[in-house]
Structures are given as C-alpha cells and as structure tokens.
C-alpha cells in the first residue's frame, strides 16, 4: 500500500467517525496546550527574576560583612566578632585594577519630614557612583554629586512615592527636608522603577553615606556594591576584594562576596528545574490522552473486524493493516498536538496583551516536547490495537468475530 493511500484512508476513517475523533483530538489538544502553557509560565517566571537581577546592575559584586562558611581550626581564644565594613574599607577596594566603581551602602529607617508632613521611610546612604552601579534613572534633578565621600554636602535624592507624600504635586527639587534631626536639600527625584529585590525604590531617600552614618550613629556599612571592569574581571575582582579586606582586617577573612552571576546562575537553575517539573506534570495529561487514543482505537478495531477480514481477503498484508490503524492514532495525535500548540500560543499572546506586569514566554523546547510526547504516546498506545487488528484471522474476522 502506498503511504499517501494509507494516510488518506486513515483520515477518511477518522472523519467518518467525527464525534469520536473530535473528542480524542480535544484530549490531546488540551494535553499539549497544558505542556506549552505551563512551561511558558515557568519560563516567564525565570525571565522575570533574571530581569530583576539584571536591573541591579551589570558585573556586580556584593560585599557583605561576616562569613557564611566555617573553616577548620580551633575556635579563636579571644571572643571575636566580625569586623564592621567601613567606608575606608570600601574606598580601599578602588586600588584594585579590576574594579571600576564602588558604592558603599548604609541603610536605616528614619522619619522624613517637610513642613508639617512626615513619613517614616528607608534611608539609603551611598555615593555618586551608586547611580551607575545600580543603573538608576532620574525623573528630575540630579544625583548625589561626586567628591570626597567624607565631606559630602547634605543633599538628598528621593523616590516618587515619598515625593508625592511630602509635596503632593508640587515640585520637590530644591525643597528642604528634615531626616531625623538633620536637614537636607532635595536635588533629585528617582524614576519610578517598581520594586527591585524587596527595596521599594519609590519610597526611600538617598543621602550621602557619611550623612547616613552620622544619622544612624553607626560607622558600619550594610554592604558594598562593587562593579568590576568587565565580565572577565569578575573573578579577579573577587580575589582582590578578599585580599584587600583581609589585609585591612588583620588577616581575617570576615566578609562574603556574592557575584551577581553566581546568584543569577542559582536562580536560573532553580527556575529552570521548576519549569521542567511543571511541564512534566502537564505531560501526564498527554499520557492520559494516549490512553484515550488506545480506547478509541480498540473500539474502532472491534467495530471494524469484518472490514479487516475483507481487507485481508482483498490481499492486505499484516503491515498494511498495522499501518492503517497506526496512522489513525498518529493522525489524531498530530492534529491534536497542532491544535493544542496553536491554542497555547494564542493563549500566551492573549495573556501578554492583557497583563503587562508579567509576560509568559514559550520556551523553544516546549512545543517540541509536547509534539514528541504526544506523537510518542499516540504511537505506543496505538500499537496494541493496530497489532490486534493486523493479527486477526481473516475467516473469523469476515464472520464478524
């Protein structure tokens, strides 16, 4: 039998039993759509998180006081707490040729007031390089000016929410505000960039690091953000940071350096695995659809026993019959997959056009995986009924049993 005749004959049979075929096709379509949709949900989440991290800045290293690993050796004889990270530690890092910029960060909460209005917000102390390290954009005014961080003028850059709460619709640039017991002049307004890793950039005030240290009466830095000179300089920069801090802290390794890449890699792996797991669960529904295909094919074989007998009398070989029934199963699976994948793409497009905050993204492997699993189950579950048909005894089959 020619392959095109086998296929057209199978298609003809499927259309002759339209209801049955449509229902099976629907099951396969729902299964493949589930695979594609759920994996695009996972992929969307992955890209969302990666985006968030990339917004932090590029080639970023974060220096945190304290160590998160224990090393061997006896415990120190004298009680010893990790040393604080100081502004001098931060500035010393600039000696490394692999480091482009640093931004020391001191953080605290304090009431901010202008006139009669007051609001308790996060106060972030840093330097002018903070803007470049974090890729911050300004809506108006300018950022903290460069200069000696020890004697920076009392300027503040504030977020959108804080500006609205304090000044309403009036222009905040140039206004005087009070943070704690100190006075500052507002010189810049941050662009609203949403929530970035938990810190709401819209509701904070950015002031010079020395002012923040004085405000909170604490010389310790919360962390130091370091921008390496390039992607390839990240490792060298990390080594330099550790070496410089060790030299300054009497030979103690008492800081932790997190590279953005390591962080990204971890999240990438976790969310990638999650996407695969979700897709795997969806694939189970495809296997269920496969069982449905088998059921439909078994019914079809038993209803067409006499027809199989006739085909054998007319000279059909076993593999002709096998081909006919397998083609039916595979056509159902293929049509169902095509419909399901189209449906999923349509759903993703619709979702993305309606929801702006989060975008679904179909990973390139998802339609392939859906098609492979669905055709595979069609083949496996179609095989048993097809073999049963092919092996029917022609005399008994012609008699209808």
């Amino acid at each position, binding site marked *: *039998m*020619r392959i095109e*005749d086998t296929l057209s*004959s199978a298609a*003809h*049979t499927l259309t*002759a039993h339209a209801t049955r075929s449509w229902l099976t096709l629907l099951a396969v379509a729902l299964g493949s759509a589930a695979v594609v949709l759920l994996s695009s949900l996972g992929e969307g989440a992955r890209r969302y998180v990666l985006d968030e991290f990339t917004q932090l800045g590029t080639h970023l290293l974060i220096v945190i006081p304290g160590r998160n690993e224990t090393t061997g050796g006896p415990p120190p004889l004298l009680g010893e707490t990790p040393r604080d990270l100081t502004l001098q530690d931060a500035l010393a890092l600039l000696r490394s040729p692999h480091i482009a910029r640093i931004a020391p960060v001191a953080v605290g909460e304090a009431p901010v007031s202008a006139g009669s209005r007051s609001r308790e917000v996060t106060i972030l102390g840093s330097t002018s390089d903070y803007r470049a390290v974090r890729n911050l954009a300004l809506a108006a005014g300018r950022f903290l000016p460069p200069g000696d961080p020890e004697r920076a003028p009392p300027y503040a850059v504030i977020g959108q929410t804080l500006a609205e709460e304090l000044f309403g619709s009036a222009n905040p640039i140039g206004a005087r505000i009070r943070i704690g017991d100190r006075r500052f002049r507002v010189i810049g307004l941050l662009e609203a960039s949403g929530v970035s890793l938990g810190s709401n950039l819209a509701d904070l005030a950015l002031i010079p690091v020395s002012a923040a240290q004085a405000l909170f009466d604490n010389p310790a830095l919360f962390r130091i953000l370091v921008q390496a000179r390039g992607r390839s300089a990240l490792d060298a920069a990390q080594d330099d940071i550790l070496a410089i801090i060790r030299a300054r802290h009497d030979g103690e390794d008492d800081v932790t350096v997190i590279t953005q890449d390591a962080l990204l890699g971890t999240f990438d792996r976790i969310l990638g695995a999650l996407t695969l797991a979700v897709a795997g669960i969806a694939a189970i529904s495809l296997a269920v659809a496969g069982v449905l295909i088998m059921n439909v094919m078994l019914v079809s074989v038993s209803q067409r026993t*006499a*027809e199989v*007998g*006739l*085909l*054998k*009398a*007319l*000279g*059909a*070989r*076993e593999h*002709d019959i096998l081909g006919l029934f397998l083609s039916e199963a595979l056509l159902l699976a293929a049509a169902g997959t095509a419909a399901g994948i189209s449906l999923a793409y349509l759903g993703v497009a619709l979702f993305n056009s309606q929801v702006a905050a989060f975008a679904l993204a179909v990973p390139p492997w998802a339609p392939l995986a859906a098609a492979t699993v669905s055709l595979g189950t069609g083949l496996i579950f179609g095989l048993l009924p097809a073999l049963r048909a092919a092996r029917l005894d*022609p*005399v008994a089959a*012609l008699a209808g049993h």
Partner: protein
Amino acid sequence: MIELTGIERRFQVGDTEVRALRQIDLTLADGDYAAVMGPSGSGKSTLLNILGLLDRPNAGRYRLDGVETTTLDEEARARLRRERIGFVFQAFHLVPRLTAFENVELPLVLAGMAPRPRRERVRQSLAAMGLTARAGHRPDQLSGGQRQRVAIARATVTEPGLILADEPTGNLDRAAGEDVVAALEALNNKGLTLIVVTHDPALGERARRRIQMDDGAIL
C-alpha cells in the same frame, strides 16, 4: 488450475475435534464453472476458505496455477489473494463509508497501484457491471443487486483468474439474483474460473460441474 490432494481441515471445538474437511481431492481446470453444494455444516465454506487462501489445511496439498501454496508464508499468500483470486460474499462486505467507486478501488489501493491507472481500471470495472451512474453512491444508497454487482466489480478489478462466490444470491430477491448470476457467468465465459458455493439447486444446476459435499467429504 486448481489441484487439491488429500486436504484435511480439523477444528477443535471444546474437547471434541471436528473434521470439517476429510481427504479432499479436487482438480479444476482454468475456465471451469463449479457449484459446491451440500447441507449446512457439510464443509462448503471451509473448502472455499481453503481455496481462497484465507485458511490453511492441516494436511494435504493445494497447488494454485502450479504454485504449492501450503508452504507459503502469510505475505506470499496475501500476494496470491491480491493477484489471482476475487471474492464475492453473501453479505457483500462493502465498506459502508466508502462510495461504490472507492470500494472497487480498494484492492488496487492495497496492491499499491498509482492513482491514475487505478481510476481507469475502476471505471472499466464499474462500466462492465453497468454501475457507471452509481459510482459516487455509498452502499446504503444502492439496492441489494447493485451492491453485489459492486462487489463483483471489486472482485474482478485486479483481473484475477479465479472468482470464489459464497452464496452470492443468498441475500437477494429472484430478479436481482439472476442479474448477479448472469454477471458471474459472463465472467466465466471470458475465461475466469468460477466456483460458487450455494444452497440453491437452481443455481447449482447452471454450473457445468457440481461438487456435492456431505460431512466434510466430496460425494
């Protein structure tokens, strides 16, 4: 040329063994017209199934056109069925979802013939049965006589040398039955070997050769 020697066919029914065919020896020349007759259960249909290579004997030899068929594998037997034998059944056995044309086309499709020459052969076969106007009709839109003539067109479309007809008029009224018998005999007149299994003595009388069976043996 059909040569059967010492054909035995036994079935196991529960604990007992039924001998459906006992030591059948039969030779039919090309172009013969034989009627196989006998009461129900005498082995007529079993004989026809053996002749049609649908069933295998437990013992004996069956040479079809000089080819020993009992040692052939299923693939080769399917090929012989396709090329040498045409079947006509009492119940017509037309595929209900296919048109008359498509039903007649089936053996050629199974033989892997290309669509263009295939269609020409089907048209000729239908025309020979006077069914050109009915080519696009499905079986349920045809009369019994027309259905059986579609079946005959299907049996002859591969130009076989042997037609096996199992009670071809059994489901037809007299007029339609006569049409069908006339069509079969016309084929025989063109040189095809025709073997008809029948209960009907009138039909049996028309054959040049009558094979009377009882209890699995030829009388």
